[in-house]
């Protein structure tokens, strides 16, 4: 289960809309309880470092990643995962997403259609390096869970 506090949720969705039709990306910070339930309390917007066409790909540069880890240390937060958008595509991880994915992280994907957030889903790698859906994060259920 992953939930969002209102401000980081609004920031993340706003970022996805602002960057459309490019893919956006950023870090998710917060806390995880002993049962593995996660609450996102902050996000950090990161530049999509992918050279060239950013409408179908994203990349977080290694120096930005190191800053992201440092931010967690400085603010006593846990780096819970990564968000990115799929412009005009469903929020389902691609093979590209899966191959590059890290264990532990929550991967939030925001589907943006014609500049409007359509739906949001969250995924995590299982021990077989396949994605499992963390829960069903439709926009409605996100707001209901806050």
């Amino acid at each position: 289960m992953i939930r969002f506090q209102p401000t980081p949720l609004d920031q993340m969705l706003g970022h996805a809309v602002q960057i459309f039709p490019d893919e956006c990306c950023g870090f998710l910070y917060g806390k995880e309880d002993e049962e593995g339930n996660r609450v996102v309390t902050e996000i950090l917007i990161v530049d999509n470092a992918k050279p060239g066409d950013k409408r179908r790909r994203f990349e977080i540069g290694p120096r930005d990643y190191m800053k992201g880890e440092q931010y967690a240390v400085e603010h006593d937060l846990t780096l819970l995962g990564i968000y990115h958008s799929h412009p005009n595509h469903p929020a389902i991880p691609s093979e590209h997403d899966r191959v590059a994915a890290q264990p532990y992280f929550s991967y939030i994907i925001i589907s943006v259609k014609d500049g409007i957030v359509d739906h949001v889903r969250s995924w995590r790698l299982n021990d077989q390096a396949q994605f499992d859906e963390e829960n069903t994060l439709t926009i409605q259920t996100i707001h209901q869970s806050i």
Partner: protein
Amino acid sequence: MATVIIPTPLRKFTNQQAKVQIPAKTVGEIIQSLATNFPDLKKHLLDEKGKIRSFVNVFAGEEDIRDLQEENTLVNDATLVSIVPAIAGGISL
């Protein structure tokens, strides 16, 4: 001896340790030592040929070891070595 910073997603393989001290003279020795001491970490660091995976970046201080002497990059007691996973994805390759 050098200090290695383990990224958050890989800490489950290092008993939740964020920093590990490793006696070594090169980055290559550090990576091999990590793979030996934390067997579950190995597949996330090394490919089938025993080389650092393409999805893994290693920094010595602020420098990518690919811009230095790669795995032969020397380290000392003051060197902070960071394991940095490549973060990428998107709709298509």
